């Protein structure tokens, strides 16, 4: 006999893109007041050069979110290499925030303290998850390329697994900044050209087919992940949370759709309909979850 699945909670992932500071602040104010999410991860994950702009306003955002009843998690840089980047992470750990580690250096510095793990750490099996749980992880957002058949095995019996459910999926990180490279400027003199593309810069094939999106040193998919048809399966598999990764569209609406879907107030078809009328940067996809190419569109697969 199987237990009824628990209520799926919703996590708002960190803003991956370089939003202007006022947009960023306004976004979190609205999330605090209106978005039906349980947990909010924030912090600069992609590029440490953007960090000073975030640091100026982060306390205000954290305060506002906590007053709005959200659990706040500080999400760390996914590819720290410089000494000062490591030190900044160490400072946040020492400040006592709940940390979401996005690379193994951060796990090392956490030294067994309870923490979350973001989708940038390689956890592909139940055995790898067990290692991280033993090291203090209490919540783990799995890498976006994992198919449902793996998620089922990983999520069973631990109440720790979160799945990337909405937004452009992060695919890769590099030491090189492609925004700077495409604009012909050096990374060290980048003039923050990435700020122009609030959903990432579209990358098309030579024959004009949309393919990737570039966000500084990060590459994402062009399509927008929308794990709607599998929400019941995920809940039944023991997944405890869905991650919604911010895009420039109305994220309060996105969160409301996923809340209603998880509560079975609307069907997946209705959810897809509601999402697809939003001004999204690409078409909806659940290819990765189905074990297909991540670029495969929702419409192309029954």
């Amino acid at each position: 006999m199987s237990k009824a699945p628990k209520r799926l909670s919703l996590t708002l992932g960190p803003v991956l893109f370089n939003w202007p500071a006022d947009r960023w602040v306004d976004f979190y104010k609205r999330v605090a007041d209106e978005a039906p999410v349980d947990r909010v991860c924030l912090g600069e994950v992609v590029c440490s050069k953007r960090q000073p702009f975030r640091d100026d306003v982060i306390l205000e955002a954290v305060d506002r979110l906590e007053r709005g009843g959200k659990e706040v998690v500080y999400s760390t840089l996914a590819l720290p290499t410089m000494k000062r980047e490591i030190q900044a992470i160490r400072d946040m750990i020492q400040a006592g925030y709940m940390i979401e580690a996005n690379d193994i250096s951060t796990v090392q510095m956490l030294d067994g303290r309870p923490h979350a793990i973001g989708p940038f750490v390689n956890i592909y099996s139940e055995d790898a998850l067990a290692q991280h749980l033993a090291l203090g992880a209490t919540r783990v957002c799995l890498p976006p390329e994992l198919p449902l058949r793996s998620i089922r095995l990983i999520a069973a019996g631990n109440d720790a697994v979160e799945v990337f459910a909405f937004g452009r999926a992060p695919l890769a990180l590099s030491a090189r900044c492609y925004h700077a490279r495409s604009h012909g400027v050096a990374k060290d003199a980048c003039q923050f050209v990435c700020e122009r593309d609030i959903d990432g810069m579209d990358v098309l094939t030579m024959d004009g087919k949309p393919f990737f999106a570039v966000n500084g040193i990060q590459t994402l998919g062009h399509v927008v992940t929308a794990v709607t048809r599998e929400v019941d399966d995920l809940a039944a598999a023991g997944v405890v949370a869905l991650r919604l990764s911010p895009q420039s569209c109305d994220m309060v609406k996105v969160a409301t759709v996923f809340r209603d879907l998880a509560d079975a107030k609307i069907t997946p078809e209705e959810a897809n309909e509601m999402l697809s009328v939003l001004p999204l940067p690409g078409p909806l996809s659940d290819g990765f979850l189905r074990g297909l190419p991540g670029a495969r569109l929702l419409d192309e697969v029954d």
Partner: protein
Amino acid sequence: MNAPSTLRGPELVCPAGTPAGLRTAVDAGAHSIYCGYADETNARNFPGLNFDRTEMREGIAYAHERGAKALVALNTFVRAGAMDIWKRGVDDAVAAGADALILADIALIAYARQAHPKQRLHLSVQAAAATPEAIAFYRDRFSIARVVLPRVLTVEEIARLTAHAAPCETEVFVFGGLCVMAEGRCMLSSYATGKSPNMTGVCSPPSHVAYRDEEDALVASVGGFTVERFSKDEPAGYPTLCKGRFLADGTVSHLFEDPVSLNAIELLPRLAGVGVTAFKIEGRQRGRAYVAAVVQAFRRAVDTMAAGRKIDVAELRALTEGQRDTTGAYKKAWR
């Protein structure tokens, strides 16, 4: 036969994609070869490559008889529900006499350390340990003896990492294919094809590559996405996703990286000077003639350095003929 290694500078770690390739690399002067089983446990899981159990035992014996070491790569991430396949790989490689296992998955590392306490373990580049803290994580928990550093670092960063890593050794790539993304953390291939380095041990796999003629050009695609157009008079290279030409902000360019390969021979003295233990040559998928030429040239360079003389940079340049080369991220301007 290998020359006696009394003048020993850095260790030269060379690719062995097949049993014949292993013998070629050993005969050409490799101090160590690296190879893997013909299954999803290794990150070069291509048809026609790699070793079955018997070939592995015989290959390792061949290397040992000639004074070379054999490093066995089991460097993919364990598939959920399939840990036994990877565990068997570890056990068989140990039984076959591997001098070290090259591992990336935290659970497999934990298993290898527990099941084979004395076995030497190396951390694969696929684990992307790019900071002193990341290296300490694996060194202090699992007694990792050597870490293969990501290709996203500058020489200055390599120097700092090598100093912090001790007693754990460092190994760096010096020649061959160049990943421009942080290794082991790249899903471009699964996005386009459903097959990825982390999950299936392949990148931009041949099964998903197609070529078609279009007017004056040969058009190469991966998973149905056009990646490169070769004009009729230029050689058609392999369409790796991150080396393709794309349209962004109104301009067509090699957005991520030009179709170049890594050649860090000019940096060997500096890398050795900062304490790097081993130089790695990429290319388990390469032909025997290529491997022989590259291994011989690098062995000469390493021996020349060890004898305190200047190395001949031009010789290796010739091997990248027809293809441009780069020192990649090792120089900061690359970023």
